[in-house]
């Protein structure tokens, strides 16, 4: 350094207030997890069985689909995008999985699938369909520059339609035990789909936290132009998150048919809203660039605990969407309040 322009004493302190503990900021940041704990305590006090191990696994198995979809959705929302198509892709991929498992006689209700490798093929087909759908969405968003909301709204309609065309109104059922294992089996005390859910959370966490890919996702979401001018392949990155989200939806299609023992056109209807709610409640910014998988996990569990607790208290299930809606708005409000504090 050639010039001598030492720091002006005091300037640093003026520009950057020291970090202090601000109750509202803390509340905003940890609101979801606090709320989760409070709810769990309330429901346990009403119904001690709520805290049982059995209910723990039950709760997770109830929510694994939301959980896996939310992991994929977190990637999309971190780039500032949105994926409204997950429920429809899930339904279509579920039908494809069922059809592949049952082979050429898939319309024959009396014909169970062959088990073994057929199940593996089914899982592969479902994820391939999901990832393929995601690739189409990603192409339209990143290359054709159609807003993600519009692209995946189109997907929401189109993939549901594809499912209808394929099923012709008839669900596909009767699966082998090999097939059902993926939805209803156990590994030790843990339901198989819950293990898969846990693996996705872990993988998503590691990727976002520690890899160059994860870092690039945050950068693209935080400032796409800066990311591009820093040499990142922004188009490819944006396409990739829709593929990830589609892949998750495809896998969930397979897992859900295995769980329910039937592939239906109406599977996954309305899931996109619950999944987006989980991600947003978990603190991921809809503008992109900020958020985390752990937040999403908390958001998913929060919704799961709430649903189950309301059921325990015999609250009319029709109230559930109202409550979720209120919580989503409230949590985003708190989050923004906290951010404003941090920036002030």
């Amino acid at each position, binding site marked *: 350094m050639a010039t001598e322009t030492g720091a002006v004493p005091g300037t640093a302190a003026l520009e950057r207030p020291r970090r202090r503990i601000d109750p509202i900021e803390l509340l905003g940041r940890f609101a979801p997890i606090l709320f989760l704990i409070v709810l769990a305590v309330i429901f346990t006090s009403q119904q001690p069985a709520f805290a049982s191990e059995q209910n723990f696994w039950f709760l997770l198995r109830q929510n694994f689909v939301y959980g896996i979809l939310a992991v994929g959705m977190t990637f999309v929302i971190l780039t500032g995008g949105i994926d409204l198509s997950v429920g429809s892709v899930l339904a279509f991929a579920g039908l494809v999985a069922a059809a592949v498992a049952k082979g050429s006689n898939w319309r024959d209700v009396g014909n169970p699938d062959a088990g073994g490798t057929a199940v593996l093929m089914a899982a592969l087909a479902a994820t391939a369909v999901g990832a393929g759908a995601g690739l189409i969405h990603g192409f339209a968003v990143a290359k054709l520059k159609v807003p993600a909301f519009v692209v995946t709204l189109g997907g929401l309609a189109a993939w549901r339609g594809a499912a209808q065309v394929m099923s012709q109104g008839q669900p596909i059922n009767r699966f082998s035990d090999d097939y059902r294992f993926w939805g209803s089996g156990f590994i030790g005390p843990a339901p198989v789909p819950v293990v898969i859910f846990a693996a996705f959370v872990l993988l998503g966490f590691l990727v976002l936290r520690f890899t160059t*890919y994860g870092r690039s996702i945050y950068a693209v979401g935080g400032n796409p132009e800066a990311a591009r001018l820093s040499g990142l392949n922004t188009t490819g990155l944006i396409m990739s998150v829709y593929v990830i989200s589609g892949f998750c939806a495809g896998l969930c299609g397979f897992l859900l048919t295995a769980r329910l023992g039937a592939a239906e056109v109406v599977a996954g209807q309305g899931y996109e809203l619950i999944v987006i709610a989980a991600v947003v409640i978990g603190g991921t910014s809809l503008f992109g660039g900020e958020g985390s998988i752990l937040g999403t996990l908390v958001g998913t569990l929060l919704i799961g605990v709430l649903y189950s607790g309301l059921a325990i208290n015999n609250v009319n299930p029709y109230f559930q969407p109202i409550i979720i809606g209120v919580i989503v708005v409230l949590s985003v409000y708190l989050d923004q309040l906290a951010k404003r504090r941090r920036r002030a």
Partner: protein
Amino acid sequence: MVQSEPARPDESSGSPLLRVERVTKTFPGVVALQDVSLEVYPGEVLGLVGENGAGKSTLMKILSGVYQPDSGEIVLDGKPVTLHSPRQAQDLGIAIIYQEFNLMPNLSVEENVFVGREPNTGKVVRWRQLRKQTEDLLDQLGVRLNPGAIVRSLSVAEQQMVEIAKALSLNARLVIMDEPTSALTDTEVAALFDIIRGLKARGLAVIYISHRLEEIFTICDRVTVLRDGQLAGELPVAEATPDRIVRLMVGRPLMDLFRPEQAERRLEILAERSPEPVLEVRGLGRTGTGQDPSAIVLEDVSFSVRPGEIVGLAGLVGSGRTEIARAIFGADEYDRGEILVDGQPTRIRSPREAIRLGIGLVPEDRKLQALVLSLAIRENMALSLLDRLSRFGVVRLGAERALARRMVDALRVRTPSIEQKVLNLSGGNQQKVVIAKWLALHPKILIMDEPTRGIDIGAKAEVHGLMHQLAADGVAILMISSELPEIIHMSDRILVMRQGRIAGELGHAEATQETVMALATGVSASTVAAA
């Protein structure tokens, strides 16, 4: 502490329009303003200067009713007032023109000027009267602008005129302008100054905030200097010198900002070694913009830059300077011509490829184009070299932290930690983070578009020092700047652009403000000098 000087312009021996008395404002953990006093008289332009973080914006927000002071008084027309809200400040005749305008881009000029106060009969707007009143206002300002024009379609300068017209329509008596010229061309600045003189003649008081000292000398009557939230001094412009103001701002004398001897030494070295150019541009051309597919953006642009050389790219805003930078960097496409790096013809299609070839770009707008504000300093610095800082796609956090620490030290980024979000840094420190990002890559060619825009004078000197250092290390630097003194003193050669072409080249010795402007505007040097 420098004693504040008892300076008072003779002509305004009347009572001040506004007096700020010993105002203190603290934020959690920080004293933003301490015992600051100042006064403004009717018909006076008061310059307000200070480094980033000196308290200018806090003071301005207090005067506009956004913040309330913890102690101290604001006296308007001899009466103490409390400003609870921007609305109240407005009603009392205080108008603020922010750097980012508060206009509604989809509405017309007249709608913007009188928004919420349109002349009406009951609920119905009287459009003809609205047009008339707007025209009168614009006439008073001497501005030719169609009141029906949609604000989005106006230039930055024109939008500023709309803001000023709006302030007048509110019967403002005090107009505060925050860095009003940062996005204006020189002609537009001159026009703005005419308007400010007009406001002055009508007895309005103006507080003029700017980083550009030469503007303070042109337009202000007195200047008040803030440093670290305190009043560092106050003096009539007639008695001030740039040196004196800078000393008040930074609290110590500053070495010659541009250090011309550095450039001269470099020229000698270049002449001695005469290295082969590392970057060569031949006949670069591009036709068509988003608005006009037949507009010529660049035409037959040819030049070269040698290692260790700083080449300046001058010209008016819109003359194609930034477009050249972006074309070389692969950020925009070009239709014609050739770019050679190290003598090899290359077709650079994306910034990614440019970086691979050893080209870096410090873009024009650091917040929009260079930084991810929500990420930490460490993460921003590593962004363009993630490949090198990772193994099997996993970021090596240790190496990344080490790099960030090294850069923060080397560039003296003022921050408590490398984990600080870039959002929380001052403009100068943000710019250092942008530069650090490229230094870490060890580029062969560094393109710097307005590298010191909007940063304070101390940081600016440091950036200039860095540029000299880089050039001494053999980096080829292509520098774009709208500030003539900067480009003239920093550059070994200056390419002047006009309407997408290179209008001429000036050596270090022959470059003056007049010769550069003459080439940039296409009029002869003597005319420029006379104007």
